[in-house]
């Protein structure tokens, strides 16, 4: 499979006064096209920092990160915006939907940022919310909002979908529904998905699982035969 992401000795330091925190202390990894990658680790292990760097919303202190031929580490602010716009989709733990747009418009908004968007209505149908197209975020449950958020992220037709605790704010059943959507998208469109989570059960559906600790990749587990969502004991 084609390699889409390559990191060499990624380092990220946060300096607050005299305190220096090495959030990432020299991380190397590669991620192939179409892979579903799960990043696990305790709080403060550096997993979210890595996701943010991959997503182009955090700069690195040193090291290199390439997305295909794009040297992400060398991009300036405008370049990072273009990178996010072109290649990256985000799913947030707390949905972050636009309160002033209804469900369909939230999805269409993301579509407008892409040169090759997917059909917003189809996506809304795909997440089972056709009936809720005209509803605003305040009128929907958390699970419904997260499904709209996923549809929004997918509408951009991103090559890289980054999810930060996508099920963290949901009950188990809704969380399973959300994971089913993500894996289906991964299979249907062959898009690369990286999920940061505390939930080890999610690791069973991944192609690769990176375990983070103290800013390092503690170990990498490659699942030759990942389970389907329905096969996992949630």
């Amino acid at each position, binding site marked *: 499979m084609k390699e889409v992401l390559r990191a060499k000795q990624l380092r990220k330091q946060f300096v607050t006064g005299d305190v220096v925190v090495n959030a990432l202390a020299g991380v190397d990894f590669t991620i192939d096209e179409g892979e579903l990658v799960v990043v696990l680790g305790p709080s403060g292990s550096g997993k979210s920092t890595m996701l943010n760097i991959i997503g182009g919303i*955090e700069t690195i202190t040193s090291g290199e990160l390439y997305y295909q031929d794009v040297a992400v580490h060398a991009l300036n602010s405008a370049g990072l915006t273009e990178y996010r716009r072109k290649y990256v989709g985000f799913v947030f733990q707390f949905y972050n939907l636009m309160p002033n747009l209804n469900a369909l418009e939230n999805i269409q*908004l993301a579509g407008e940022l892409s040169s090759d968007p997917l059909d917003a209505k189809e996506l809304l149908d795909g997440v089972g919310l056709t009936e809720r197209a005209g509803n*605003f975020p305040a009128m929907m449950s958390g699970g419904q909002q997260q499904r709209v958020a996923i549809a929004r992220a997918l509408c951009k037709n991103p090559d890289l979908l980054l999810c930060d605790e996508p099920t963290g704010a949901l009950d188990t059943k809704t969380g399973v529904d959300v994971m089913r959507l993500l894996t289906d998208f991964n299979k249907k469109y062959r898009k690369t998905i990286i999920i940061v989570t505390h939930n080890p059960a999610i690791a069973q559906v991944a192609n690769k699982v990176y375990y983070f600790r103290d800013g390092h990749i503690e170990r990498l587990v490659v699942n030759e035969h990942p389970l389907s969502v329905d096969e996992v004991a949630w």
Partner: protein
Amino acid sequence: MKYYSKNIFRTVLQNRGSYIGAIIIISIGVMVFIAMTEFLNNLKLGLEDYCEKNEFADVFASVENMPRGKLDDLLDIEGVDAVFGRLEGDVRLLRDEGSRIITLHLMGWRADDSMNLLTLRPDAEDVSADELYVGANMADVYGFAPGDTLTLVANGRTRHYTYAGKVHSPEGMYPLASESGAPDTAIYDIGAMNAEALEALLGKRGTVTAVGVRLAPGVRFPQVKAPLEQKLRPYGLNDLYPRKDQTSYNALIDEIESYELIIALLPTIFMLVTMFILYIMLKKMVDKDRQLIGTLKAFGATNWEIASRYLLQGVVIGLAGGLLPILPAELAGRYLYIDDVNYYAMPYQNYSVNPAVWANGMLISMGTALTALLLGIRDVLVIMPAESMKSAAPSGGLSFRLPRWVDRLLNRRQKIGLRAIFRNLLRSLVIALSIAMPFSMVSSFGSFNDVLTQTIYDQFLKADTYDLQVRLANYVSEETAESILRKLEGVRAAETASSYPVKLTARNRSEDALLAVMDPDSTLQRIMDIDNQFFLPRSDGLILSEGFANKLGVAVGDVLEVSGGKLTRDEQTVRIPVVQLVRVGFGSGCYLSREGLERFFQTRYQPNSLLLDAEPGQLDRVKEQVNKLRGVSVALESERMLQSSAYEMDITVLMLNLLAGFSLIAGVIMIYNIINISMRERRNEFGTLMVLGMRRDEITEIIVFEQAINFVLGILMGFPFSEALCRLIEYAVGTDTLSVAMHIRPTAYLATFGICATATMASVYFVIRGVLDIQLTEVLKARD
């Protein structure tokens, strides 16, 4: 709760711009309050002190000729404690340069004067027969120096005197050359000389023309009015009035009363603006801290423990808002006081500082801050501990849908902006209000000077079109007046006119007025309202200004009882109906035609002034001739009357201009703060869009589009507010003889629009900068 206080303190530091803004606005309001209160208190105390030191009379009378020896007869009247008489008269002061007609209202000085004392500067034990003291303001205008020779003309004879110094008198604080208009001390002021020398100059030996009466304790003017009239009438009683109606005293009291309204009104506006900002800030802070408050309650914290930490901010803001303005306010108050005391030529300038006023300013400041805070944090009381576990419940469902044509017209970003407005109408309304308030305040306060100037110009260029008004010392026959006019050369048009001091009574209300008797065919003096419409004087009744009508509580058709020393005898009053009400800009406010005078008062028309319109380039020549005329009291140039009328309103104009400036400062602070606060709560929303890949220009478009709509909304709301403020200003500055039709010119609106637009654009610029600097990683963690 020490650490919760620390948390709030840090939040305050993060929002320091808003707090500093609130403190500045509250300070402006308190400054206006302290400055105006100190100014007025000092003015009132100064007036009382002046009147007491100079033994200002309780009752005043002017008579034609009263033998000094007859004054004691007045002591027979029950309630009269002391009587005083003085010879007074108008004489011409000749100056070498120019043809200006200068008149001194001379007052006789005696070492044993017991009432209405004259203050001479430098102090003098005695005044010799050749010494002349001149009113302080006129002396300053011409730069008289002791030893200068001054030439007076009286009864056609010229005499020379030595200028000895300045004279001040409570009676001469507001030296009016005629009963209407404003003082112009370059042409009319008081003067003083030895009483015997004045008697010789005026040819009135042993007589007095001005009478002062001291009443016994507890006795009031109405109780002695009738007997005084009876005793004084044989000596040609012209006027009899209590202290409150004495021209100078009355002018100062009127001014104090009109400023008292400003003291009540303007700080209130600034305090409301401050309350508005603080309320919004605190409400947003509590909303933001909702979960934290819930958590603390879950830990067992009481409402008071939590709320008191927020209230501490109110105390700090209140203290700062009450303390910071004290020094600038005292400086401003002193400036206003000195300016006014000089205008009124008061000799004592003892500005005293009153800490009680500071305390009141502090109370206002604290009250404002704490009220705003209590309103803002009242939600603390209803937050439940369970709310620490979840975000605030979203507002109710939104049924709003954009109309299809709007939907098609706008792109997605503009829709986000537009929807944001309708999603939170209160937020948009608050922003719009923050724009509407300075727009209306700056446009209305800033327009007053223009409107006033226009009103005065209109009066002197359209209604009173003469160049020179010559007031005669006495009422004369029409034939005599016309014979004088015939002798004057260089006059294009000339008319006679007359006016009488009268008392208007309707039921239990009375007002002193100057009845202008006018010729319906006059081209030099006409009745004009503030809309520049002309009215002919009526013979079937009085035309009254709306100001008088309101004070008397009368309408068209009501009948007034009119009395006046020259027009009615004894207790006689004449009943005259009110036939028309006119909103006059400037003028006597009480009009009757010549025919009406004869009809109601059974008396022939007798002019007491001449109105002259000079041939082009001949005004100086006409003035020179008038200077030589006998029997002339004063001559008023139309152009100078215009200037002095405008100057009289100088402090009011200055104050309203200052307020326009303060409103502007407050407005800019308010616009920035409110927009900033409102946008800050949406940082997460904008951050999400940026994470999704939205460019800076697209984010900018959303914010600019939304704020542009809020701005338009604010401007639209500003128009009715401006109109309301205009009516308020009209009410505050209007008097019996002055009305302004406040309106705001399109250019003023345009200028204010530009100012508000600039402030809004600058605010939006800084807000956008703040939004674009959002740490995107925070968005991932944020919980709306």
